[in-house]
């Protein structure tokens, strides 16, 4: 499905990806960032798909054909939920070409274009989640936040399974490499629990995270899972 209109990410999210924190960049950099954002917006073709699966127990899995959702963090996130939405989104391959082209001419522009694409991917995922949340609410159900493979102890090896059960290759042109990288790169897969009562889910803490050591958000005291210090 298409996302229209194209959401506009908060400039602060983009600055945060570039390591700025609370500091504002100089006007020249601001202008360059706007150009990078425009480039990405021109070529982005965001497409998303979601499917809802009943949850199997022991082991926790998406019914009827699997896959198993292994690890403690996803179990915590989906606790109290009877089924699970798989949300998948990609900005499409045009964005990747634009990032490469920008980087070939100017490394700084390549970096900023890449960051602008990441920010837009998140904003699009937020927009798709909002649509899903509305549909679910119409059925009187509640939805947790998004939880993606690679967070906490949920393995990246889940990616091919999620694409397979949703038919994402054919539906939105998203594929996954043998090393579990989503291609096109600027893409997101996420699990959201459904329940009959209000749920929020639990994002994993930093403890098991693969980028714990180098994460700038964590160093700035703004971890993904919010203010909860665990």
């Amino acid at each position, binding site marked *: 499905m298409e996302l229209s209109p194209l959401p506009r990410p908060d400039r602060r999210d983009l600055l945060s990806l570039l390591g700025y924190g609370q500091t504002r*960049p100089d006007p020249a950099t601001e202008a360059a960032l706007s150009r990078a954002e425009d480039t990405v917006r021109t070529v982005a073709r965001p497409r998303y798909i979601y499917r809802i699966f009943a949850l199997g127990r022991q082991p926790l899995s998406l019914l009827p054909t699997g896959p198993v959702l292994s690890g403690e963090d996803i179990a915590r996130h989906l606790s109290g939920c009877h089924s699970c939405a798989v949300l998948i989104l990609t900005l499409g391959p045009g964005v990747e*070409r634009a990032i490469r082209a920008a980087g070939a001419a100017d490394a700084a522009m390549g970096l900023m274009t890449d960051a602008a694409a990441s920010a837009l991917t998140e904003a699009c995922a937020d927009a798709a989640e909002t649509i899903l949340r509305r549909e679910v609410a119409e059925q009187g159900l509640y939805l947790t936040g998004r939880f993606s493979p690679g967070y906490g102890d949920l393995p*990246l090896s889940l990616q091919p399974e999620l694409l397979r059960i949703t*038919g994402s290759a054919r539906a939105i042109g998203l594929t996954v*490499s043998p090393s579990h*990288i989503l*291609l096109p790169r600027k893409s997101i897969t996420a699990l959201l629990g459904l329940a009959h009562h209000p749920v929020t889910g639990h994002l994993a803490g930093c403890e098991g995270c693969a980028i714990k050591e180098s994460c700038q958000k964590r160093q700035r005291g703004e971890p993904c899972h919010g203010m909860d210090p665990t």
Partner: protein
Amino acid sequence: MGWTLPKDRYLLLDGGMGTLLQSAGLQPGQPPERMNLTAPDAVVAIHKAYIAAGAEVILTNTFGAANRPEPGFDIEAAVKVALACAKAARAGTHVAVALDMGPTGELLEPGGLLSFEEAYDRYARLVRIGAEGGADLIVIETMADLLEAKAALLAAKENSDLPVLLSMTFEADGRSFAGVPVEALGVALGPMGPDGLGINCSVGPAGIMPLIERLAAVTDLPLFIKPNAGLPDPVTGRHNLPPDAFAREMAALTELPGIVMAGGCCGTTPEHIAALKATLAGKAPRPSSPRRVSRVCSATRVLELEGVHPIGERINPTGKQPLRQALKAGDLSVVQVMAAEQEHEGAAILDINVGLPGGDEVDLLPRAVKAVQAVSSLPVQIDSANPAAIEAALRVVSGRALVNSTTGERDKLEAILPLCKKYGAMVVGLTLDEDGIPETAEGRVDIARRILSAAVDHGLAREDVCIDCLTLAASALPGSAGVTIEALRTVREELGLHTVLGVSNISFGLPNRPLINQNFLTMALQAGLTLPILNPGNPGMMGAVDAFRLLSGQDSEARDFIARHSEQSPPPAATASEALSLEEAILRGLKTEADRAALKLLDTEAPMAVVEGHLMPALDRIGRDFEAGRAFLPQLLSAASAAQAAFEQVRRVLLAGGEAPEGPPVVVATVQGDVHDIGKNIVKVLLENYGFRVIDLGRDVPPAAVSRAVSESGAGLVGLSALMTTTLPAMAETVALLRTEHPDCRVMVGGAVLTEGYAQHIGAHFYGADAGRAAAYAREVYRNHE
């Protein structure tokens, strides 16, 4: 026997397979090919139902057979059984069995990791099984990537004699997921000689009609459509257009030219095909008559060659030392910079020439084509004297290329024209032959006629031929400009062909070359030059093209001219920026100003004094600011680029003085399996700033390739990057190989998921937590080597 198309009626194809297999027990998400082995009777029954409904071509249940093989699943056996099922179902009928080949399910390079060659091999294997197993034809379908479709088409044609139908899938706006416009299918793959082209899956019948009409406007091949049963339900993904409504919408195809076959895709059933049969009964296809225009294309852009289109000439190592050096080291990043710059400057087509004395062009040219396609959306011109290199390059062109060039020499025509035919390329013919370059215009036009006639004999269309009437130095041969102009005029007016000309040779040996070049270009354009080969970075030459297009009425309402020239009135020289010192220009990341400031300093200071007294202090300062959190990555990189511009000026002076400034080599790469290269690129820019000669191997680089680059360059330092936990093993493997094969070489590693501890654990010498620290380490290694 052999399968042929009927002339006076529509040929009916079959419908969807997946949904029917699910009703027969296939679990969603399971590969449907498994059903060939687990439930062959169900597969036969589906084929029989389609035959009963009226289908005259049935597609084997092998859509996903080109996917990466799953361990333990014998895909070869599944394909053989699929063929047997289809043949059993059609026994006793005239129905044809088509080997069905869908996409690989993976993204091809450069966006993904699957190489063109591996995709080709997977399809070639299927084709051989299909041909042996008795398929009557091959159907390639649901392609979204033009290059992947080309791999399948080449595999089909090179490994069998079977007829081939090829269809791609597009969204409602006429572009595939990969951004391929519907016309590119006809322009790029039509001339390669499939037996029919089509559109399948995509949208419902109503949505597919305007798309197939667009395809019919660019190809005269037989066309087909296999639409879905309407749009998918957003929640279930099912297609729910009932048979009668499907057939009603399909009736519109009888009004459109070129379509001769029809069937269905996702969600369609034998009932849909039966209803379609009733709708098409007694009706006859309409012939198509596309406009005969020369067209080239990339995967995302189709260019109709009407009017003037400049070809960018800069990717050519002749006389360009940095490009020669990079090509010798196998580093194509310089080629990519040139491609991106020329596109930005307004080139319409990119010429690619990587011929070096002693270089392996057969290996290098296709890699250069891939590198250019990774960063540019322009069509390409393959420029080589080596037919084997041209063929290697044409294979991997994602789009339709020009081949530069053949001549009127018999051997040359016989070597080049069959390649253009096979790969569907346009050809540039130089007006020279065994006797050299004719001195008269008539002589050159005669050769042009011979080239045209040979091309047509080889199956090319007239509009596939362009002629280069050749520019000779006016200083050596007075009057030669007039001969070129006269020949060009005749070729354009009498033969009606497009004309190519490299113009700058005209001024060789004369002062004020730009003045001569620009005037000669205008003369040639006036005489009918349509494809000037020039440096689009040269404002005088591009300006002459822009002005000519405006004055000759090709630029309606002066739109292009205004867009390109309204902001170009150069600011008066005495702005504040002129006063910027080199240090200041670098700190503010201003390339042009840094370049200008360096040029000025070099008037009064020695090159190395400029480096040590101005460049390095500025770089050190921005580096310190970055570490202290006072400057951020975009600024650091902009400063680095500005410093690079200043370095180029220094290097120019040093070269002129006969010194050969070549920094110590450092190899950088993103490890095998990983595609994240931003971090690696940042490190590269900083290293170049500090004078290192960086050999950039790109991304997804196998350990052996890194080791080989170290052997060839003698690098004392390698930088490796990996961003994913899943690609850390590849990094460990690369480090281990380097430690074994190059014990004296240092290895630094970096990437989001790396830690100091892990870097030590895998035996790396240094963990670069950020680009600044990596560059500092490189300088330390280098100092110790000295």
